[in-house]
């Protein structure tokens, strides 16, 4: 593959991943409202276009048209930097996710992953950790006590749950023997999903994913009913939109990561027996991965409209006193089983 072709293919892939993340995040807002409405026996937005499918566009236009207010007492540079970081970090996480195997076109092999760095999981953990700075900086720069409280809660929550998440991933890495997301996905052919090898790890990871994306029952940084809007109380217009949008992109990315790590990624059971061509198999793999992702996005919403918000001390108790010991136990038991049965 020539260098210019390589660059072209990577650029197309990057743009595609970026566009898909944005579109899915956009329609997640619509889906969220629909799911919320349906679970409350309502209909949800259904006026803009058929079934209200133009609602996200209308919301976007509204966000752009709103007056942009930067408080006098705020730190203007940081006030703008906050949502930018939140948006930026949530957009670049998709780079290491393997969206499919590869496509053979004109004798070239095009891998459906922007970059296969051999420490893919660490990259994801690192970027999500930076993501908390977006919230922290935004909340602090607003110079508002609600924002500050929201930001403090966000940072303490994310730091607490990252530990348990990291430990759950350590147990996963012990069974897979690699940090590359591509290899992890490739290992889970057929029904060899990591879910069956790491059920406890999966539950811990899932709970932490909820906490990391600030979704209910862990939406304390926002907690509309007690902190107005939490860290984004002072934000308006598209900067608010960036924060809200970043949350939905995070939700999409975490669904993709959960699917890749524990649910076989693009692997589809029995697809090898159908005798399809390589390209068709790859495309079906993408479809299957997205089916899993959409299920998890739905699951995020489903939980949001079922489980009430934790109190802050309950959140900390769950994180430090239950999830971390549990994940350490999980690491120990994984190590024990590997030692006993897989020498």
């Amino acid at each position, binding site marked *: 593959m020539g260098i210019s072709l390589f660059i072209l293919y990577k650029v197309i892939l990057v743009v595609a991943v970026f566009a898909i993340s944005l579109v899915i995040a956009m329609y997640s807002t619509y889906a969220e409202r629909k*799911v919320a409405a*349906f*679970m*409350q*026996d*309502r*209909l949800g937005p*259904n006026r803009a276009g058929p079934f209200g499918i133009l609602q996200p566009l209308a919301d976007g236009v509204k966000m752009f048209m709103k007056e942009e207010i930067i408080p006098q007492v705020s730190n203007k540079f940081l006030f703008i930097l906050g949502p930018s970081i939140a948006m930026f970090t949530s957009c670049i996480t998709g780079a290491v996710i393997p969206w499919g195997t590869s496509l053979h076109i004109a004798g070239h092999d095009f891998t459906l992953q922007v970059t296969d760095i051999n420490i893919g999981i660490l990259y994801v953990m690192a970027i999500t950790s930076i993501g908390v700075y977006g919230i922290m900086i935004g909340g602090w720069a607003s110079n508002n006590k609600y924002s500050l409280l929201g930001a403090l809660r966000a940072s303490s929550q994310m730091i607490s749950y990252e530990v348990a998440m990291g430990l759950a991933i350590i147990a996963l890495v012990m069974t897979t023997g690699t940090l590359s997301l591509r290899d992890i996905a490739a290992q889970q052919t057929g029904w060899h999903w990591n879910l069956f090898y790491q059920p406890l790890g999966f539950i811990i990871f899932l709970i932490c994913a909820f906490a990391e994306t600030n979704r209910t029952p862990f939406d304390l940084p926002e907690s509309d009913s007690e902190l107005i809007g939490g860290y984004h109380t002072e934000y308006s217009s598209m900067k608010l939109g960036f924060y809200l949008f970043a949350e939905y992109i995070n939700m999409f990315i975490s669904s993709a990561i959960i699917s890749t790590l524990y649910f076989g990624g693009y692997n589809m059971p029995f697809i090898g027996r159908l005798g399809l061509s390589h390209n068709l198999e790859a495309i079906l793999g993408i479809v299957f991965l997205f089916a899993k992702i959409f299920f998890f996005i739905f699951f995020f919403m*489903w*939980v949001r*409209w*079922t*489980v009430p918000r934790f109190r802050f001390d309950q959140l900390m108790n769950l994180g430090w006193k239950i999830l971390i010991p549990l994940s350490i136990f999980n690491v120990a038991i994984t190590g024990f089983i590997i030692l006993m049965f897989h020498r």
Partner: protein
Amino acid sequence: MQALTTRSKVASNKKMTFVEKLYIPAILGGLRITLNHFFKKKVTIQYPEQKREFAPVFRGQHVLKRDENGAERCTACGLCAVACPAEAITMTAAERKPGEESLYREEKYASVYEINMLRCIFCGLCEEACPKEAIFLTDRIVDTEYVRQNLVFGKDKLVEPINNRIDVSVRETKETREFKTHPGYAHNKLYTKPSKA
């Protein structure tokens, strides 16, 4: 003590069992409930297209009735304006000219008749006060507006169109007519002719 409902549960401060402490069965139960609701029939009534059926006593936008020949019943006596607790009704009286008999039922009529729908509290006292069966409250909802001034309804909006009569039979019942005409009521006695003695 007698339970108020059949669904009441006795709360206690007992220690939770291990399974209860896991919370996962409880969360799954909650998820099941919300999923059931997800597929349930929705209760929403989509307003402009679908309308909920109103009770017969519903009091909505007013109508100024015409008689069987299409002449306006209102004689601008002003009793409705006097009765109105919100002072929403104003009118100007005018004398009927020769040749206008098909337009107005009696010699006097309202050249201007306005109801401010923002002031109106839809109590229906105007309807009760009217001795000419001219004003009625209907089951129509007053449309929303962007400009306040447009909610001061004039005769163009209040008088019923000749070709498109508005049915008020629900409100113009035998009882209401009796209420207005029966000499036994004190409010009707006031307007009976004084006796010759």
